[in-house]
């Protein structure tokens, strides 16, 4: 029981950044924009988030710094793909390359520093309930925030008029434009939301997961978040399942390494990446009847005047 509780707690902790980043990217892609720069926005969010928290001594300031940094990165992407109609795949790659360099530059002065990680919720009585108490009532704020974010995005996409318009823009930008909706403006807001989430997800890593910054600490999580959006078939609910499944794979391989089944640790470490490939293949294969992706995903739109 104690081991199971520890595993569930660890899975929640490992899944949260994936969930936050993937939720943001889901909104971006639902508006028809494929931003492959999630990894780059996350790693800059991590460096700025840690910097903000270390200089101010406040986790919240750190998280806000991460969000601002991610949003700023996404604005570069928006200017390129929406303003200049540049290929989204190439721009996303450029954003990742730039982000890795920038985070190294910004984060170099913080390497070796430590902060007090984000506090965990503690409600006397509730948190002390055996097993369920710490899982339900003993998480840090990011975990609750990530779940609220998914619910909020689901509500926005399916229960509001603005969400309907956003989905329309992602499915057919020509029709949406003909109806008078400002396609590029809506897409820019969606890209910024994706950037803010990626920045927050990146900031989570040094603020709550490990209380220090190391260059390259996102370790491909941004790319896994992108794969999760495909896995979820662009539905927020399935994103939660996907994120926790991937968190579970990450944690189980760590436990398996600890138990030492005689399998080299590198093979275990490769598991989350291999799992991503296998899941992508299975999901794409199951979907041969027709794609569930937003119809205009990744296509350039230059309004006719």
């Amino acid at each position, binding site marked *: 029981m104690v081991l199971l509780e520890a595993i569930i707690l660890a899975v929640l902790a490992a899944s949260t950044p994936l969930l936050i980043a993937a939720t943001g990217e889901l909104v971006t892609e639902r508006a028809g924009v494929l931003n492959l720069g999630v990894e780059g926005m996350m790693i800059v969010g991590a460096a700025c988030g840690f910097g903000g928290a270390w200089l101010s001594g406040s986790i919240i300031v750190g998280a806000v710094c991460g969000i601002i940094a991610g949003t700023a990165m996404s604005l570069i992407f928006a200017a390129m793909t929406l303003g200049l109609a540049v290929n989204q795949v*190439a721009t996303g790659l*450029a954003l990742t390359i730039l982000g890795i360099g920038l985070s190294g*530059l910004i984060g170099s002065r913080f390497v070796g520093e430590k902060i007090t990680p984000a506090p965990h919720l503690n409600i006397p009585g509730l948190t002390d309930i055996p097993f369920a108490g710490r899982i339900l009532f003993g998480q840090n704020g990011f975990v609750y925030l990530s779940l609220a974010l998914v619910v909020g995005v689901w509500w926005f996409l399916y229960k509001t008029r603005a969400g309907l318009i956003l989905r329309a823009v992602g499915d057919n930008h020509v029709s949406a434009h003909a109806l008078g909706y400002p396609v590029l403006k809506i897409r820019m807001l969606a890209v910024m939301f994706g950037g803010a989430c990626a920045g927050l997800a990146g900031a989570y890593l040094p603020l709550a997961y490990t209380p220090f910054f190391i260059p390259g600490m996102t370790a491909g999580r941004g*790319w896994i978040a992108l794969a999760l959006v495909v896995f979820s078939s662009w539905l927020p609910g399935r994103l939660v399942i996907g994120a926790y499944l991937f968190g579970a794979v990450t944690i189980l391989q760590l436990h398996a390494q600890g138990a030492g089944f005689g399998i080299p640790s*590198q093979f275990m470490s*490769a598991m989350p990446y291999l799992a991503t*490939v296998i899941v*992508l293949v299975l999901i794409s294969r199951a979907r041969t009847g027709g794609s569930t992706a937003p119809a205009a995903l990744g296509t350039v739109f230059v309004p006719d*005047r």
Partner: protein
Amino acid sequence: MQLVLEKRAERSNTIALVSPLIAIGLTIVTMSILFVILGKNPISALGVYFIDPLTDSYSLQEIAVKATPLVMIAIGLSLCYLANAWNIGAEGQFLIGAVAGSWLAVKTQGTDAGYWVMPAMLLLGAIGGALYALIPAICKVKFGASEILTSLMLVYVADLFLDYLVRGPWRDPAGFNFPTTAEFDPVATVPVLIEGGRLHLGAIITLAVVAAGAVLLGRTIKGFEIRVVGAAPRAARFGGFNSNQLILLTFAISGALAGLAGIVEVAGPVGHLQPGISPGYGFTAIIVAFLGRLNPVGILIAGLFLALTFIGGEQAQIAMKIPLDVTKVFQGILLFYVLACDSLILYRFRLISSSPKVSRGAA
């Protein structure tokens, strides 16, 4: 008044020619600002980056050595990108090529194997890289899985696999527990061109690859098919071109070239297999491919230019204590400007009045 983007009636050849130069110019301006922010004198920093490496023969050779893998990989990537197949896992194919070729070097270590070893290693490296690149390509054409994500995930897998080999079965028993294989035998190394120099046979191979790429794209039906499939997929379908087959082909070629670059690097300048054999060649090659306009000769020039930034970055770190990450920032910014300037080949900006009633000027 409002600034809007509009499609040109036809592509601008003038901008196509000067756009890489504008991009480099804008990058240098941006970098100068960054140097000022870092508290360095921008003039002397730019001098260390772009001029100093060109002034001594050691650095010149080193630029060619660094450009070798960049150009080789980028030629392959350009074929993929022209065909609209997004292989971004060249880094992984580079590592697997290095591993596949090193297998023979490790197995023949200390035996009296003859001069066939090195060519056989290069062949194995190319095959290893091609097979590894075919995994995402097959996942794409058989199951429709995004080749972008799968090829990238396999980079991490390749990295861990190489790490396992040099810490486990292939570790040099006399290597003081360092994660590396033993130095390769002389018959298992790529020879240098000038005695005592650093320039090796790989440079010649790269030039041959550039020539082959130019012939393939400019003079063969396959090259024509690759370009049509990417530029006009509908027309390609009407023409009966098999785009799935071209995805497999371009991935296989680019994987083979990345793998070849990997084994040439290991059997050449490095001399043994160890982690960290690539400072991100597979990713920088993406920039090289775009800066070179997906054109073989352009890629050769772009590869030399990016190699210059690697060498300049190292010298700037030593001479001016400028962090190495500045080089990566530089490369990222450069790619942004290249893509942005390329957009102006097809589009142009126009200032329009916000009021629709005002008559438009002649287009």
